């Protein structure tokens, strides 16, 4: 490891080889997208290998990627509105997904070309990091080449819905740790034969979000070839707001 003192403080020429990890807690979906775009422009303009990983949870929200359709939803617009759940159409891969507290959203914003990764390598790195993290939680999990995501005995527990612009990745993947399953079931899975499940269901006991986060950061950094990563809690561009959300009785 190189511990030479930093002498170049010019942000235009200073080079970084690390993964910057932001633990954001619960963030509304629009703010997470804005923050990703901010980092997307920053990473696109750099010449080094620096990458960013945003980790957060979202209040209940439905998103539909390029491989999804409205027909995946089990409820109509009126019911979504009555539950105060927004619907967003996105330019990511993957189908329709419900995001809710208890699901870890991981948004890696990475210069794939400078990391020497093709699209298949990138997908494999994401899936392998989740599989290794699950293994540490004693949940056997596997990948399936024909379907992006991670699967365990009781169904699919992680989904990939990513986008790559100018060789920089954004959007990302979603891992069900312990979401409320009545919310998750608002959307039918794209892989019809696999039900939606979670890590807690598989373990039949509660699983803490922070333990999965810790495993995921370590394994994802390893899969992507980062030797250093820095952790931050929150982000200066995010402000604390209140939002009314549906809570079932």
């Amino acid at each position, binding site marked *: 490891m190189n511990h030479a003192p930093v002498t170049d403080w010019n942000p235009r020429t200073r080079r970084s080889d690390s993964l910057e990890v932001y633990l954001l807690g619960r963030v509304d979906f629009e703010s997470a997208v804005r923050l990703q775009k901010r980092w997307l422009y920053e990473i696109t303009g750099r010449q080094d290998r620096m990458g960013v990983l945003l980790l957060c949870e979202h209040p209940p929200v439905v998103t539909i990627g390029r491989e999804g359709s409205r027909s995946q939803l089990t409820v109509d617009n009126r019911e979504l509105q009555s539950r105060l759940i927004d619907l967003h159409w996105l330019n990511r891969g993957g189908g329709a997904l419900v995001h809710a507290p208890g699901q870890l959203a991981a948004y890696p914003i990475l210069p794939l070309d400078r990391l020497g990764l093709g*699209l298949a390598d990138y997908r494999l790195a994401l899936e392998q990091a989740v599989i290794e993290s699950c293994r540490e939680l004693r949940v056997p999990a596997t990948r399936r080449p024909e379907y992006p995501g991670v699967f365990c005995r009781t169904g699919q527990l992680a989904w990939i819905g990513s986008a790559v612009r100018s060789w920089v990745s954004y959007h990302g993947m979603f891992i069900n740790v312990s979401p409320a399953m009545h919310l998750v079931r608002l959307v039918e899975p794209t892989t019809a034969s696999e039900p939606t499940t979670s890590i807690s269901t598989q373990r039949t006991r509660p699983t803490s979000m922070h333990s999965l986060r810790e495993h995921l950061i370590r394994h994802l950094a390893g899969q992507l070839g980062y030797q250093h990563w820095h952790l931050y809690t929150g982000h200066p561009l995010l402000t604390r707001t209140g939002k009314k959300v549906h809570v079932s009785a």
Partner: protein
Amino acid sequence: MATPIRLPQIGAGSAELSVSCWLVDIGELVDKGDRVIELLTAGMTFDVSAPVSGRLSRVDKPLDSPVTVGDILGWIDPETTA
């Protein structure tokens, strides 16, 4: 002379690639590096950039067409945008 927009080597492996959407219409001006077409593979989208500045003159791969590395996706007529 028109310049082809080719699908570069993107390391998608054996996964199928298809055209998700064109981000510009035929006749529209683009700058070199502008995103012109979005491709879709399992779980991922990938934006292809314009190789030169000019006007999109032809689309060879319409929506939902399967594509492979090296395919010509469309053509750009170079011209001054000033």
